[in-house]
């Protein structure tokens, strides 16, 4: 069987499709507004005419490439290309400001590769066992996961905790707009475009990219003194240490997030970022351009790619939105993802596993060889670059749903983001609130609906306790540590 797998995965045409997929994915991911989900969905019809291996592996290439590609614009332009890189933008852009864009890109490329690799290994070796985990998750667990995610606000707000909390709550408040999913009550929406809520991708583009554009207008005629010469593509020794310490762990975390249906790469990178910060010896560096932060977030989001495939292939349950489209792609080929696939199409399943490994390798090679090219973006004069960013912002927010209303949402968020940054309020908490707020609300209410109103449902399962402890550590860990330290001092 091994030979069969190698044969079908290493066939020149399959390799070509995969390389094309990864390249297309990187471009799609790097363009703000074009997400991995969209890229896979839009190129799905191309696979109708291909055989199953080529089709699926091309889509996987796009997926892997796009999740990585988002980090390029996040680092260079403070514009997460996809929501999955929102966490990368926080620290990555600090590198560019210091003239170390190449270093950040190197770290992100290698961490992405490691994160991807870890998830592929999990997929390869223990996917049937891991898949069962996906079924253990129900509303109560989802609520606690979202709640844990929201606690990250405390960590990414830096010194200005109050400002961060206000901003996060603002995000949650905006997320309540639209039809309430439990009772169908219409909240705060007098416009048909708001019935399904405020779309978070235009908000993200506005808050990050558009506001960045506004800011650069202020200094548009100033000569940039930032030196962006890339001297070395591969990270130097200290960075390697950081990467090897961080990325495998966050890759593993990403894999777990990927397995959970409904939580995608955006959540994976934030949770990875947060965990790395809790484990870090220098948590105060996070937010100021810490190599650890970039490695954590990129390892986390690429970890999701393999994780999301685990429940899809073994149970037929999509781990995230991209996996849901993949199910469609497999079905069109006459294959049914789920337990039967492992029995009837073993070769295909293992070809997919092996193909994902190759796709990650393509991503690494393309990423590393293009770092010099990517950083050229920074030597483009602001008078040229800023208008391009504006155009990309408009295109990206329009392309999501072909809806001009979304462009308006993006513009408003851009202005709000600009004003917020003037008063030094971090904007990432708003995005977190917007993504996780609805997830927390809906699952909280559904869990109570199922339990008949009893709050015990949040304390019933081991997974619930796992999250409760994590939440406790995130919120109070610092104080407990401080308490013990001072206690020891007194004793000593």
């Amino acid at each position, binding site marked *: 069987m091994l030979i069969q797998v190698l044969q079908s995965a290493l066939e020149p045409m399959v390799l070509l499709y995969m390389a094309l997929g990864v390249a297309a994915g990187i471009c*799609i991911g790097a*363009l703000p507004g*074009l997400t991995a*989900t*969209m890229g*896979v*969905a*839009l*190129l*799905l*019809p*191309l696979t*109708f005419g291909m055989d199953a291996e080529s089709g699926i592996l091309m889509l996987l290439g796009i997926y892997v490439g796009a999740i990585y590609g988002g980090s390029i614009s996040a680092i260079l332009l403070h514009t997460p290309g996809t929501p999955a890189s929102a966490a990368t933008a926080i620290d990555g852009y600090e590198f560019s400001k210091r003239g170390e864009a190449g270093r950040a890109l190197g770290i992100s490329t290698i961490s992405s590769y490691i994160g991807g690799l870890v998830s592929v290994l999990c997929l390869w070796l223990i996917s049937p066992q891991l898949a069962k985990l*996906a*079924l*253990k*998750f*129900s*509303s109560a667990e989802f609520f606690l996961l979202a709640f844990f995610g929201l606690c990250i606000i405390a960590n990414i707000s830096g010194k200005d905790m109050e400002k961060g909390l206000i901003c996060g709550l603002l995000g949650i408040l905006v997320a309540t707009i639209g*039809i309430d*999913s*439990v*009772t*169908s*009550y*219409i909240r705060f929406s007098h416009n*048909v*475009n708001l*019935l*399904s809520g405020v*779309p978070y991708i235009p908000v993200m583009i506005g808050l990050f990219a558009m506001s960045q554009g506004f800011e650069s207008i202020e200094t548009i005629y100033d000569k940039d003194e930032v030196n962006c010469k890339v001297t070395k593509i591969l990270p130097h020794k200290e960075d390697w240490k950081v990467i090897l310490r961080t990325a495998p762990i966050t890759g593993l975390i990403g894999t777990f997030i990927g397995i959970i*249906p*409904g939580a995608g790469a955006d959540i994976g990178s934030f949770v990875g970022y947060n965990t790395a910060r809790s484990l870090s010896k220098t948590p105060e560096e996070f937010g100021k351009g810490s190599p650890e932060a970039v490695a954590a977030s990129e390892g986390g989001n690429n970890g999701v790619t393999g994780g999301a495939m685990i429940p899809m292939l073994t*149970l*037929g*349950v*999509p781990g995230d*939105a991209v996996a*849901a*489209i993949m199910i*469609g792609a497999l*079905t*069109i*080929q*006459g294959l*049914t*993802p*789920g*337990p*039967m696939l492992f029995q009837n199409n073993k070769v295909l399943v293992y070809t997919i596993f092996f193909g994902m490994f190759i796709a990650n390798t393509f991503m690494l090679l393309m990423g590393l060889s293009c770092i010099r090219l990517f950083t050229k973006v920074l030597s483009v004069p602001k008078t040229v670059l800023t208008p391009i960013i504006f155009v990309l912002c408009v*295109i990206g927010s*329009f*392309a999501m*749903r*072909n*809806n001009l209303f979304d462009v308006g949402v993006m513009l408003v968020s851009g202005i709000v983001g600009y004003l917020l940054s003037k008063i030094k309020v971090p904007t990432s908490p708003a995005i977190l609130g917007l993504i996780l707020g609805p997830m927390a609300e*809906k699952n909280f209410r*559904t869990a109570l*609906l*199922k339990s008949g109103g009893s709050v015990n449902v949040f304390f019933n399962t081991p997974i619930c306790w796992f999250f409760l402890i994590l939440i406790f550590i995130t919120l109070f860990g610092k104080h407990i540590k401080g308490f013990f330290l001072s206690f020891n001092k007194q004793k000593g």
Partner: protein
Amino acid sequence: MKKFLKRTIGIALSMTLVASLAACGTKASDANADAGSQEPAAVDFSKESVTAIVPYDAGGGTDTVMRALADAAKGSFKNITVENRSGAGGATGMLAGANAAADGKTITMTTVELTTLEAMGTNAGLTYSQFKPIMMVNSAASAITVKADDTRFNTLEDVLEYSKSNGFQMGNSGNGAIWHLAAAGLAKAADTQFTHVGYDGAAGAITDLLGGHIDGVAVSYAEVANYVASGDLKVLAVLSDNRLEAIPDVPTAKESGYDVVLGTWRGLAVPAATPQEVVDELYRIFSEAAQSEDFVTFMNNSNNVIEIMDGPSYEARMAKDLETYTALIEDLGLKVQ
């Protein structure tokens, strides 16, 4: 003529713009190739570029069916582009389609939500009479499904009896969505009640059922077919007129004495003011495409049931469904004021 030329060029240019903006895989770049070179013959589509609006995201069930159908029909048009305009549970896209020019060049994939949204009151002014239906393409009935190893439930009667005394947790694809209404319709006919648990889409409900967190789901057979084949889930009844071909042993609810036929459908429609001869031509093109070998294979592979219905019957179905759902939603107290 000059005015017409200007308009066509305008449309063509904006279409290219839209197409390139969407950065989509479908190459629509030749849309402006020979703009305005000829008057459109009323019923000749071979030189026309047509847009098909899908009111849901790319990659979903409705989207893939429309794309497959467009692929099967592409020979009859100069160009057919599928455009996803999602939002507001489908209202955004369907409203856009209803308000498009009534020349047959903008076709909308209408779904059962065209009636349920109006019944709910979340339609934002959308109503089925804004459309002239071309044809129904496919339909799917609700299948009452439970875990295969759940010994409490072996027949539909077991479920209904259990729900009367213990409360039966029935998962659906979203509050007020079709599978919620289908389950509620069954409960109403059987004079009982379910605890309805809503998810974002059927997949979430099915996952929760597989994990044993709820008692059953009322989604379409296509959505649970994999798990029925693998022996994880079992279907107790289908809410259709006749038994499904794929599962001939499963009775309909009608056979058990509950007259409920509820489910989803998809079809094509154009704005109401579109001339009849244009609609007839589109019906000819798409009914042929829907019977083509490629499309039939695709539908079978994806567990979709093709049900072709002509325009007038499709419209009658819409009217009847709107009535059913309005009554159901009122009973459920879901109507949005």
